[in-house]
């Protein structure tokens, strides 16, 4: 997989022994415990975990939105440990990493038109207004939205359209790594397929993707590797097909066993109960 925009073979993201704590210092509880994860250029990694497993915290720590208690994060070879506000701003303005937020309903400013939202990252970088508008239009096309949506407000778009605008906004700076938090969870089947197909195309262009989801089924088809987070720890990492077919950790087994499917009957309840007991032990 030799993406045309691959500039180096170093990993775009290298997380080593990351600890994140929440809450006031005395009573803080760990949200992430010693998480290590590497994402190679052009690679797609699915991060799976249930509510409260720390998957969103992982993304926010990588983006500098929450401070790390220990461990290191390297973005495109740059160690961001101990970065201050100004240094973060400098790194972010280069547009190396972008983030697509969990909730497509709230991730776009309701008072800004689609064009305003799309051009924002470029304007922040200092791109001239006309150039920014031209590129925004091009990226709208890439997420298969008609150009006449540019003048609309988010309130006038469907959930699926909004999510695609959010994806386009993350892409306009041509980042090397995009982290998507639950990119398809809020979408119904048709929109889900559309967004997943856009992500597939994106992979082909050499952008590295991190897909965060609670639903194994929705990201497994798009991911090269799957990482399973459980209670703040990375319990399993491996090629997507292996993780699904030969889950090793009890939680992964439970996850695979719980996923509803069309043809197979749900796996036996006794088996799931046993796995749950194992996890709670």
């Amino acid at each position, binding site marked *: 997989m030799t993406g045309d925009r691959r500039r180096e073979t170093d990993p775009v993201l290298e997380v080593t022994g990351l600890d994140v704590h929440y809450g006031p210092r005395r009573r803080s509880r760990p949200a992430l415990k010693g998480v290590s994860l590497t994402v190679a250029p052009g690679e797609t990694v699915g991060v799976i975990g249930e509510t409260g497993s720390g998957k969103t915290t992982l993304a926010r720590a990588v983006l500098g939105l929450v401070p790390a208690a220990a461990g290191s994060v390297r973005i495109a070879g740059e160690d961001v440990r101990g970065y201050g506000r100004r240094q973060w701003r400098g790194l972010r303005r280069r547009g190396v990493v972008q983030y697509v937020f969990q909730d497509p309903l709230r991730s776009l400013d309701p008072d*800004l038109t689609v064009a305003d939202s799309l051009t924002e990252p470029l304007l922040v*970088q200092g791109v001239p207004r006309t150039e920014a508008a031209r590129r925004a239009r091009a990226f709208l096309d890439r997420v298969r939205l008609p150009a006449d949506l540019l003048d609309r407000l988010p309130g006038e778009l469907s959930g699926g359209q909004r999510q695609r605008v959010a994806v386009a906004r993350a892409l306009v*700076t041509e980042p090397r790594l995009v982290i998507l938090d639950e990119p398809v969870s809020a979408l119904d089947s048709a929109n889900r397929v559309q967004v997943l197909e856009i992500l597939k195309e994106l992979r082909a262009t050499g952008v590295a993707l991190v897909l965060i989801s609670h639903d194994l089924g929705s990201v497994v088809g798009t991911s090269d590797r799957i990482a399973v987070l459980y209670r703040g720890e990375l319990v399993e990492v491996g090629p997507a097909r292996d993780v699904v077919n030969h889950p090793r950790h009890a939680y992964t087994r439970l996850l695979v066993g719980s996923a509803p499917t069309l043809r197979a009957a749900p796996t036996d309840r006794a088996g799931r109960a046993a796995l749950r007991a194992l996890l709670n032990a």
Partner: protein
Amino acid sequence: MLRRVLALTSGRIAVGILAVIALLALLGPLLAPQDPLATSDNTLAAASGAHWLGTDYLGRDVLSRLLDGSRVSVLGSLEVAVMALVVGAIPGILSVYLGRVFEWVTLRLADTLVALPFLLFAVAVIALLGNGITQAMLVTGALVSPLFYRVARAATLSVARSPYVEAALVSGASIGWVVRRHVWLKVLPPLAVAFAQTIGVGFVIVSSLTFLGIGVQPPEPTWGGLLASDLGYLSHQPWAPVVPALLIMVTVWAANLLADAIRDVSGEAGRALVNSRKARANRRAAADPVSAGGTR
């Protein structure tokens, strides 16, 4: 926003009344039929062809005094509102972003201003800076500003942690950018409501200050001043305070009406309101008997 406000009946009434008041303020002194300061022997006269609203205890034409005083009164309350907006809203927005120290200090300051007895504070400032309209506005503006501080802070807080603000931050936006681009539009509707309300409050405050002789010097007429002087001659002319009181009342009422209309048409609630009005109109238009299905 304005178009939505005008879609409401109450909004139209409010804007209409306030437009007339604004015209009064602009043209009032020119419209005054007689010199508002000229005294005559004809004191405390009833309404007549020469003096439509009669004369006061020094024989001055009441209508002329009302018209002449409107500029000071209206501009005064506007000044109060603008002053409060500037003094309150800007620190309110910044308190969310400029760190804990700034937040703590401004919060305590706002609390203190709320706790201060109004008249004492006003008298103290006048004693310090000398009597005058500007000082009076300064005092009232500062005292009303905690309202704007609170409103702006609350609205900013609700936006500050929204995903779209974080998305802007992840793209490298500065705080100034975020405030200009995202926060300002969210803070505006509640501030507009507070502003309209403050215009009403400002009237009452400026009037009561003039009533006490603070701010505007005696010979110069204001609505509140007229009310004050008329009250002294209630036994001779019981109806005299009615007109200035009515003017103040109508203006305050219209400002409050406008504030309500702004609140009604902004945000989600506004959209729901506009929708239900549309529904009612449609039902009336489609008054054919076919739609007899669900009547609940």
